[in-house]
């Protein structure tokens, strides 16, 4: 983790359903690459953090100090992917559901 870039970017995270106590009813997958977003959204923000217009304005206001107490924009998921999960419902019937926004594709400052 230490050589992770300071700027807002996607970081690796593998989620194992056994670690969160769901493996008793989740049949597949047993784990998946979820990733997460972390890093600075400092002024001036590079293009790579794909700031929204509001984030750009907010970071300028913060840098100029017009209004004290304004935080820097947040590093959050931008594009996300779905995940199909095969699990047992309460009656132990097999169910397949495709959940949206389960893993991070790209991060951005918002």
């Amino acid at each position, binding site marked *: 983790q230490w050589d992770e870039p300071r700027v807002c970017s996607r970081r690796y995270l593998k989620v194992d359903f056994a670690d969160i106590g*769901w493996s008793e009813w989740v049949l597949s997958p*047993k784990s998946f690459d979820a990733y997460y977003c972390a890093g600075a959204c400092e002024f001036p923000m590079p293009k790579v953090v794909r700031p929204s217009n509001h984030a750009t304005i907010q970071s300028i206001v913060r840098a100029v100090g017009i209004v004290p107490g304004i935080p820097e924009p947040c590093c959050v998921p931008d594009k996300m992917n779905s995940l199909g999960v095969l699990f047992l419902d*309460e*009656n132990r*019937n*097999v*169910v*397949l559901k495709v*959940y949206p926004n389960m893993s991070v594709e790209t991060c951005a400052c918002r």
Partner: protein
Amino acid sequence: SHTAPAWSAPLAAVRGLREDQDSHGSAGDAVAALGPSAQDMVAVHMLRLYEKYSRQGARPGGGNTVRSFRARMEVVDQKAMYFFNLTSMQDSEMILTATFHFYTEPPRWPQVREAMCKPPRAKNASCRLLPPGPPARQHLLFRSLSQNSATQGLLRGAMTLVPPPRGLWQAKDISARARGDGELLLSAQLDSGEKELGVPKPSPRGPYILIYANDLAIAEPNSVAVTLQRYDPFPAGDPEPRAAPNSSADPRVRRAAQVSGPLLDNELPGLDERPAHAPHAHHYHKHELWPSPFRALKPRPGRKDRRKKGQDTFLGSSQVLDFDEKTMQKARRK
């Protein structure tokens, strides 16, 4: 309807799934997690759908949800009756397609009927064998099991099935019925009109229902928690909650918030001094002690003496927050 491969399909399919462990070996995990029930066709069918989605991203049935429903078999009048409980369907799940899958035994062809040979037992008696009669047709009957007496036992659907030349799986589309009726408790009977040989037994070839749906709530925030974040794995009545199979003793100490004494009301503790001067003063100087902004609360006079106006009885006990006009103006400006 379409015909699925012969019933040996589950075993072959399970073996296939085990062999073609894909990159993150998910199907093999699923087969292991299903344990013995991985042998029945419904589990194999669902695993196939999962594999197909994981590989190709193909939305199962065009929606985002597939629910499978195994049948519970009971013998009624020497015949196998299959009961389906569809109550785990969520209100937000809009049914797109529903299919009923069942296995038909290889037809027991009626014995070839021998004509009477003339003369009987003659050496060169010419015996003509009569062609076998047509195999018995099967009827698929659906009945409602809803509590509502008006529709209980009501025939919800009947199909005549042409027996296939050999034993294999078939599927019938029951979408219209599933969407229309909204019945969540159904029974199904495969009736060939013939007497069952022996008492039917539950088998991995039991019929099952697949419902392809679009869950309108799946895009809601936290939808994954609604269906996957379940009860505490330790049943409430458990005297000694069993440690989760592979969890180490949890090093974290549970701390309850220390509440200092019973909270009687929302007074600020330790503020019992009287205001230094009349609380309505409009001026104050920084070097003076901050006047206590509290003013004793006027107790709400009871109904009878509310008529006696102006009777103020100060109880020095409780305090309220109150600010003079200057402070209020400053705050408003801020």
